[in-house]
């Protein structure tokens, strides 16, 4: 119903617009340099205001990194309940956001706040990318290796945390994973060269992998045993602490996924699980895969793994083996 709105209005400088289910919009500034723009905000995923701010900002910045870009300036987007959230809490949320933006090497140049009973925070981010470094999600090639830079399970863990059922230790790990910028992974991609990339957020590993495989006209063969996840997520999935979004992901993608390997239903739910500030999924030429993986890990994403490879188009776009 909304698909047919001609948002880009035929503007020839728009390289990537809304129709591509891409991570960010891309606009040509001049021959070599492209502008990348995105915006995102989220409700609280952890209890600590500073950490929430930092995670929300990392989550917003991630779309720029998924395109191979670097952030340059940001706007705060704040929806908060001025009657129930104390000023010092809001201050800490904003400081957490600033912390992430500083690490990104970008600047916060303004923002907008509205009153809302449900807290939301995030950023509108402007970035730039050199055209040769642009990693769209439609260029994965048969033979490529697939790298995932962060472990899965964040949706399940943050859902469990809302009712105090996640362990403190796992939540600490989850917060650290979500707070990590995808900047290091993007820089590694620029350095080594990659064919295609996306970031894993609300549609989960399978949802975002499917978008990339579909857009590229290929099939992804994922090795279940190589895909990193926080182990407690499987236990919590078994107790029904799964966000509704993850079930939606399963419903929308299941016809395009084939499990050759026997996995418990709870384990499968981790692969469908909606992520907040998830890692990048990168498609890279096989001869560069190990070098890229090593550099990504060195740049901070220590749990990054090669999780599978790209094959020619089969009946299903995603196969777990």
């Amino acid at each position: 119903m909304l698909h047919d709105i001609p948002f880009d209005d035929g503007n020839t400088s728009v390289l990537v617009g809304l129709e591509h289910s891409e991570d960010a919009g891309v606009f040509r500034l001049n021959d070599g340099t492209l502008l990348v723009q995105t915006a995102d905000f989220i409700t609280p995923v952890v209890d600590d205001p500073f950490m929430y701010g930092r995670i929300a900002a990392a989550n917003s910045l991630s779309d720029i990194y998924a395109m191979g870009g670097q952030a340059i300036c940001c706007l705060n987007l704040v929806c908060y309940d001025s009657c129930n959230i104390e000023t010092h809490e809001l201050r800490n949320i904003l400081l957490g956001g600033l912390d992430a933006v500083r690490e990104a090497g970008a600047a916060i140049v303004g923002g907008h706040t509205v009153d809302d009973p449900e807290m939301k925070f995030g950023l509108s981010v402007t970035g730039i990318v050199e055209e040769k470094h642009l990693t769209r999600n439609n260029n994965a090639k048969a033979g490529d290796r697939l790298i995932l830079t962060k472990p899965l399970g964040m949706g399940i863990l943050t859902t469990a945390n809302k009712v105090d059922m996640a362990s403190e230790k796992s939540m600490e790990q989850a917060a650290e994973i979500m707070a990590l910028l995808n900047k290091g992974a993007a820089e590694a991609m620029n350095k080594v060269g990659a064919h295609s990339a996306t970031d894993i957020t609300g549609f989960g590993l399978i949802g975002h992998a499917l978008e990339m495989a579909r857009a590229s006209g290929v099939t992804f063969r994922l090795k279940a045993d190589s895909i990193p996840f926080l182990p407690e997520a499987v236990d919590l999935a078994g107790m029904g602490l799964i966000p509704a979004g993850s079930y939606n992901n399963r419903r929308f993608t299941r016809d395009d996924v084939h499990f050759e390997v026997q996995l418990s239903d709870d384990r499968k739910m981790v692969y469908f699980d909606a992520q907040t500030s998830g890692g990048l999924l990168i498609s890279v030429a096989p001869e560069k895969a190990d070098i890229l993986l090593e550099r990504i890990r060195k740049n901070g994403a220590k749990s990054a793994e090669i999780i599978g490879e790209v094959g020619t188009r089969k009946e299903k776009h995603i196969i777990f083996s």
Partner: protein
Amino acid sequence: MSQVVDAKGLACPQPVILAKKALSGIEEGLITVIVDSEASRENVRRFAESQGCTVSVEEKDGEFHLEIAKGYTCGIPDHAEESGKDTGKKRAMFIQSDSIGPDAELGKQLLKAFLESMVELEDRELPAKMIFVNRGVFVTCFWNETIEKLAELKARGVEIFSCGACLNFFKIADKLKIGGVGNAFDSVQTLVTHENAITLG
């Protein structure tokens, strides 16, 4: 009367938490949780099953009614009453392995625990016959602790047989420590003439 928990309109994981509270308030029995989304239906079912409860789901006008049974359901004791005092005697047990379920190591422990706990049954609940076939004959030959308990059952009138062909196949006919040796005809006859044959393993 079973307790009803109305969790309609609540986002995940709130319905799970309401179900958790309701279940922790009872030792055994039934609760019904009403939800109105597929995600909540799945989540409440997962939670209840993770707690060892059984769940049945009914859809009514876009709502899901999950009936959760904790502990023994009311149905089982009723049924036992109905089937009368001496039907236990008509039961045959057919033990066809030295393990229950897919994991062999766990399965051995389970079978041992099941068989040994049978001495706790009332006389009227005991089966008339126990027939050990295939790898089940390892129990009657080598499981000394279990054999002691089987001897108690035998003394209380349970007939115990091990399959002769099976003993020969494993070359352990000389190791049999409890009960008699049966043949295929005995086994088949027992299975068809006893109303309730229970298969283990």
